[in-house]
């Protein structure tokens, strides 16, 4: 292990790279070992942790899932009930989806009540809000994919709500639905948005979020 690492390090000089990422001081006021109440500073990291689980479990679920109205439900039924650990992997994605929203909300509350959104960190608050919206979008599009009754009607209602937006409502509905009804074209569309577009946007935003927090540091003690 060590010799493989030093062999690589001699040639690529990787130590400064990961030192830059991993080695940094945690201020006393955010360390729960010093003040237990500082656990509120963990919510952002926990949100990221659950996000990583979502990405991993989602990748594995697509090994069995088919985004097609004939096969979607039976493929989910198959992976949940016939494949070993299927209920666990799908369970991680299902419960993680709710947990990530909860953690993100708690993280937002912490940032709000510690006033961490104030200058010079306003831009990071805005990025955080964008991540919040992308997460809600991921939740909304993912909800349709099992293609059961709950999924179908939740999406129908969701699209109807979007339709009530002034001026652009009808266009949003058309864009989300993809066709005359919530059906074949909606499902493939939601799948593409759920696994390609929104995760890509989310990763870019997370990159910005982390870059800024490292650059500006955690906001000082109250």
């Amino acid at each position, binding site marked *: 292990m060590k010799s493989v690492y030093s062999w690589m390090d001699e040639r690529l000089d990787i130590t400064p790279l990961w030192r830059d990422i991993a080695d940094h001081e945690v201020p006393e006021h955010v360390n729960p070992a010093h003040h237990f109440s500082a656990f509120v500073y963990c919510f952002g990291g926990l949100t990221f942790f659950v996000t990583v689980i979502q990405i991993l479990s989602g990748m*594995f679920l697509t090994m069995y899932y088919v985004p097609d109205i004939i096969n979607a439900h039976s493929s989910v039924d198959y*992976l949940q009930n016939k494949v*070993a*650990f299927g209920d666990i992997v799908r369970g991680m994605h299902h419960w993680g989806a709710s947990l990530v929203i909860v953690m993100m909300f708690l993280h937002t509350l912490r940032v709000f009540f510690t006033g961490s959104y104030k200058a010079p960190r306003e831009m990071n608050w805005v990025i955080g809000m964008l991540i919040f919206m992308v997460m809600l979008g991921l939740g909304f599009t993912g909800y349709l994919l099992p293609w059961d009754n709950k999924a179908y009607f939740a999406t129908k209602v969701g699209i109807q709500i979007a339709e009530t937006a002034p001026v652009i409502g009808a266009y949003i509905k058309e864009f989300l639905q993809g066709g005359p009804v919530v059906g074949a074209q909606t499902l493939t569309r939601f799948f593409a948005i759920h696994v390609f577009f929104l995760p890509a946007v989310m990763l870019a935003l997370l990159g910005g979020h982390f870059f800024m927090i490292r650059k500006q540091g955690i906001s000082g003690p109250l």
Partner: protein
Amino acid sequence: MSDGIAKGHDQHTEQSNHKKEMSRRQFLTYTLGATGGFLAAGITIPMIRFAVDPLLEKGEATDFVKVTEVSKLTTTPIEIRFQVNQVDGWVESNPELIAWLRKDEAGNVTALSPVCKHLGCTVNFVSTDNKYECPCHGAQYTNEGKNLKVAPLPLDEYSVKVDNGSVYLGQIIPNHLTSK
């Protein structure tokens, strides 16, 4: 003997001295590494088991399917098409298979798969030549499936069961007729 004990004692103290040499930092690194590894394993092991499930699934034995009556067979192979039940994940279908059936001189029923062992085209029995011939690259086989030209191996056969005058076909197996 007392030497040995003393030696053992020395080793013991040496070891405990050595243990004390582990720095706080090193201990924390190991502990963190172990905890992190445990968490990562808890997350990834179910997922990996989930992904490799097809490898570990036991293949179900193929059911024998009734295809024809023994009385309808002669020493000249005839083509029989029959359907088998196939379960592929969440898709169940009844694909059609082809077998060429004949009765040899002793009355044993044999069934050959017409998939050419050269490159997988479908061979036909040409009764004027008394041979199986492949339309693609001219591979030829005897009526027992023995490879004469082009193909490297004899035609595969179906496992055959005869019960009460009916012929049942099962799994495809390597040809054993021609090795005799």
